[in-house]
Structure formats: structure tokens, C-alpha cells
């Protein structure tokens, strides 16, 4: 049995409308989840909930050398995809992506590991293993050597000889893969007087990094590079299909500056191998 004053339904409704609204404000607990933070595909996917809420989203790329703000704008709830904007990133190591969404003064946060180092804008040159059959020079005297430092006189195309001397290795017509001979043409060994710079050893062509390969997805770096070692993968932003191309460091390039990578190409032409251009380059670790 209810005791006390009795009111009409109309009166009840009126009382709720005027007195309950300020007593029970809508409180939202914003939730933030970064489901993807992938520099290779240049994608950051952030889920914000509840979907009906809206607030300021701050997206940050964390670095020991100083965080970088990727976005600071109002966003409603739902799933959003963002770019790292890699060409605008400063050269430094990054560790994770952080998101903070503030709705009605309440902030929800999320983070996801994203470890990479922006190296800066690098010059990307190219090198190859020229094939003698694609060279056109006149035959010139040359020597093929072996591990015993025996010299066998032969002829090779003049532009091919020049290419082996510059590149260090090439593919001959009659002797297969050859590398430039250094050890058999140095004293105290005895060698034909004209043998230096025209002596080549039959040997498989291998990169400087042990156990690695050479192909269209490998690059060579400067010796003793501060940030790149054998086996490191790099994203070359803007090369090939967007957002870029991933290649692996497998070789050394004594003539490269630190801000240069020499890209191996399976193009076997004797000449005409040009630069690819300048690209922002990111180490993927």
C-alpha cells in the first residue's frame, strides 16, 4: 500500500522532465583500441567506442627522441584508418603509436607497438651483374685464374672487362660467373705483366653479407653504417606501388655515402643502369 500524496500521471511526467535531467548526466567511458599500426602498409586503424560519442582524438608516434603528433582532430566513434604520413616524419627511432580520445572531459587511451627508424631521404642508386653477351666491345686480352693462381689467357669484350673491374663481378660467355682477381695479381705472387685489371676468377657471385642473396629486393649499404646492418629490411617510401617497396640489406657498397643505398637489379645490361631517385627510407625495426 502506497502512502502519501497521490498525483496524476500528467503530474508525474512533468516532475521527471524538470527534475531528473540535471540529476543524471550522461557519462561516457571512451574506449580506444589500435588494432593495426603497420608502417609497411602505412596504416593505423583505431576503433573508438561508443559509436554515438564524439570527441578530440590525439594520435601520437612515440620516440625516445621526441614524440610526433600524427593527428589532433575531433572524431566520432567507429573505426578510423590513418596514415603515418611517412614522408613528413623526422629521422629518428619510433617505438609505438598512441591514441587518446577525449569525450566530455573523459579520456580513453590505447597504444600499439610500431618499431621502426626513419633514416631520412636517401639516394637510391642501382648496380647489377652485367652479362658479357650484352656487352658490345671488341675482344681484349684477359686472364682466367684459379685458386692456385694459374693464369689462362683468353679474350673478353672490352666493355665487359671494364664492367667487371668496376662492379667486382659479372657473367662471362665462356667462363660463367667471374669476379675480379685481386690476390693472384699482388706481390709476392708471380703474374703476367699485363694481368692486373684484366684477370678474373671463376667464382659464384655472392654479396658481402654472409649467407645472403642478390636479387631485385636487395640493397647494398655503406660500410660500417650507423643504422643498417646485414639482414635489415628497409621500406623505400614512394618506390614502386604505394606506399613503397621493402628491400633487404645483403651487400656492401664502398662508394656509397651513408645516406645512399645501392639497389641490386637483375637487369643484366652492360651499361645504362641509372639511379632510382631520392626516397624517404625507413628501417623496419
Amino acid at each position: 500500500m502506497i502512502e502519501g500524496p497521490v498525483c496524476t500521471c500528467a503530474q508525474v511526467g512533468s516532475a521527471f522532465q524538470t527534475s531528473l535531467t540535471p540529476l543524471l548526466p550522461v557519462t561516457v567511458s571512451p574506449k580506444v583500441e589500435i588494432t593495426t599500426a603497420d608502417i609497411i602498409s602505412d596504416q593505423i586503424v583505431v576503433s573508438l567506442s561508443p559509436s554515438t560519442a564524439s570527441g578530440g582524438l590525439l594520435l601520437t608516434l612515440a620516440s625516445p627522441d621526441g614524440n610526433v603528433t600524427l593527428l589532433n582532430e575531433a572524431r566520432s566513434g567507429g573505426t578510423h584508418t590513418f596514415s603515418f604520413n611517412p614522408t613528413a616524419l623526422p629521422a629518428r627511432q619510433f617505438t609505438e603509436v598512441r591514441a587518446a580520445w577525449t569525450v566530455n572531459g573523459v579520456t580513453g587511451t590505447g597504444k600499439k607497438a610500431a618499431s621502426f627508424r626513419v633514416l631520412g631521404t636517401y639516394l637510391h642508386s642501382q648496380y647489377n651483374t652485367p652479362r658479357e653477351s650484352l656487352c658490345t666491345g671488341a675482344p681484349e686480352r684477359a686472364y682466367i685464374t684459379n685458386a692456385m693462381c694459374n693464369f689462362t689467357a683468353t679474350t673478353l669484350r672490352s666493355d665487359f672487362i671494364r664492367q667487371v673491374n668496376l662492379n667486382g663481378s659479372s657473367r662471362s660467355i665462356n667462363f660463367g660467373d667471374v669476379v675480379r682477381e685481386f690476390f693472384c695479381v699482388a706481390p709476392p705472387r708471380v703474374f703476367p705483366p699485363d694481368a692486373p685489371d684484366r684477370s678474373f676468377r671463376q667464382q659464384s657471385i655472392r654479396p658481402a653479407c654472409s649467407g645472403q642473396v642478390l636479387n631485385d629486393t636487395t640493397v647494398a649499404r655503406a660500410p660500417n653504417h650507423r643504422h643498417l646492418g646485414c639482414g635489415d629490411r628497409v621500406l623505400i617510401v614512394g618506390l614502386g606501388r604505394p606506399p613503397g617497396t621493402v628491400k633487404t640489406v645483403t651487400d656492401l657498397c664502398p662508394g656509397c655515402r651513408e645516406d645512399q643505398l645501392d639497389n641490386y637489379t637483375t637487369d643484366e645490361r652492360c651499361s645504362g643502369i641509372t639511379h632510382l631517385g631520392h626516397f624517404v627510407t625507413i628501417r623496419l625495426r
Partner: protein
Amino acid sequence: MAVRSDLNSWRVVGAGAIFFLGIASFHGSLPSTRISSNPLTQRPSEVRPFDPDRQSETSAESEDLSISLSRMEPCGDCGGGRAFTFEVRHKRRGTLTSFTIRNETAQIDEIAIVNSSRAIVLGSVSGTVRIVNVVDLEANSVRDSFYCHFPSIYGRFIAYVKFAPRHPSPLVWSFVYLVYDVLASPEQNRLSGGRGLEDRERVGIPIYPLENVERKVYEPVILDEEEARQIAEVEANPLAEEEAHSLGSEGLFWLQEGVVAFVDRWKRKNHLVVVDVRSGLA
């Protein structure tokens, strides 16, 4: 000539004509603009993208002379595939002469006028190999030419790293730093017992490492002869990359004409090297 220091200290040591102002070694990385606070410092030659089919206009001017690349022609006999003709305007005399480069130069990158009788035309053979052409402006011909890496010109001197082909062994590519004096003859710019003036690789006078200076050799000296022999006999070269000398600065920097500075990285240490060649290279 023992001048290596393991501390951040400087020593001044003279040795024959080449005078080492000092070598300091230190750990850690270097900021990008290290040695170039003096506006007179000559920075290393800029690396132009290697694309010979898109040769850019190149010229240089002095008080007396103006030199410009005027013509390129296909050249079957030239290693670089092209002949490059330059026009030389003698301002005072009001005359016009020309010279042509026909060698392995595939692209022209830079021209430097040394004086009324000498110029340097810097070019590229490939994306990683540069070529220096020393031009006699009185004879209108190329007096000498050679391959190199990281050339840096100031006045009569060119500092650079000896050309090294790509090779797995540091015994082959370990860096040797050289200086070429454009006012000296090609013979004077080669060590005795070399392979003659046609040699495009072993050119210039070694200024570092000290082993190359002392022994007067172009080949890297990072092992004693017995160690080198043993290593040469095994195909899988066990020598680590860190055992080789390499450039730690962004190039070789002339502090003034005849005084060059650079950082050499060796055995995980950076060595700041300053060399004075003002009294000659002999």
C-alpha cells in the same frame, strides 16, 4: 710517425712533406654538419643522381675564364659511351677554345677552374664511382683522369677515397685516403713502381691510413703480410667489416687550401684526421 691517440686529444706530428696536424679518436656517432662551421670550408662534391640521358647543364666561371659543357655526342670508343665537349671562353683575351673528354666518363657533374691553365671536370662512371678529369687548358686536352669515391676539391688539391670495387673482402675495399695535386704532373701524382699513367685506380698520394703513407702503397694495409696471405687462401673471408677503414664523416672537408679533415671509422672508433699538404705531396 705514430700519431694515433685513444683520447680526445690532439698531437702535431710532422712527417716529410705531408704534415699531420692531428688524429683524435672518439666513440659514438657524429652530427651531420661536423666540420663545416667555417664558411671557407670546401664541402665534398655534391653527388648528382646518375642518369646520363638527362645530363644537366654544367659550367664554371672565374675572373679570367668561363667553361661550360657545350656538346655531347655518342662515342663508340669511349668507355662512358659519350664524348663531352667543353667551351672555354678567355675573358681577357676574348678568345674561345674547346676541349673534349673521351674516356669512361658517363656523366658530367661539376667543373672547377684551378687557374688559367688547369681545370678539373668531375664526372660519374656509375652510380657509385666518380671520375676526375684534369684538364690542361693550354693544350686543350685531358692531362690525367682517374676513378675515385667522395672527391672534394679546393684550389689545386683534390682529396678523395681510393676507388674500390664491390667485393666481400675488406682486404680489397678498406678505405685509403689520397690527395692529388693538379699543379703537379701525372707522374708526380703516382707512387713509384705503379702501373703507369694508364692506371685509373692507383692515382694520387696516400695521406691516410698511416700504414699506406709509410709504406707508400695504394692497397689497404689492415693486416700484416702473413695474416693477409692466410686469409687470401680461404674463400669464406672471416675478416669483419669493422676491421676495415671507412669514411665516418659525410665526406672530406678542406679547412683551407692544403688542409683537409675527415673522420675515419676503424675498429668501432671514429678518428678525426686532419692533414696538411701545403708544403707538397712528394
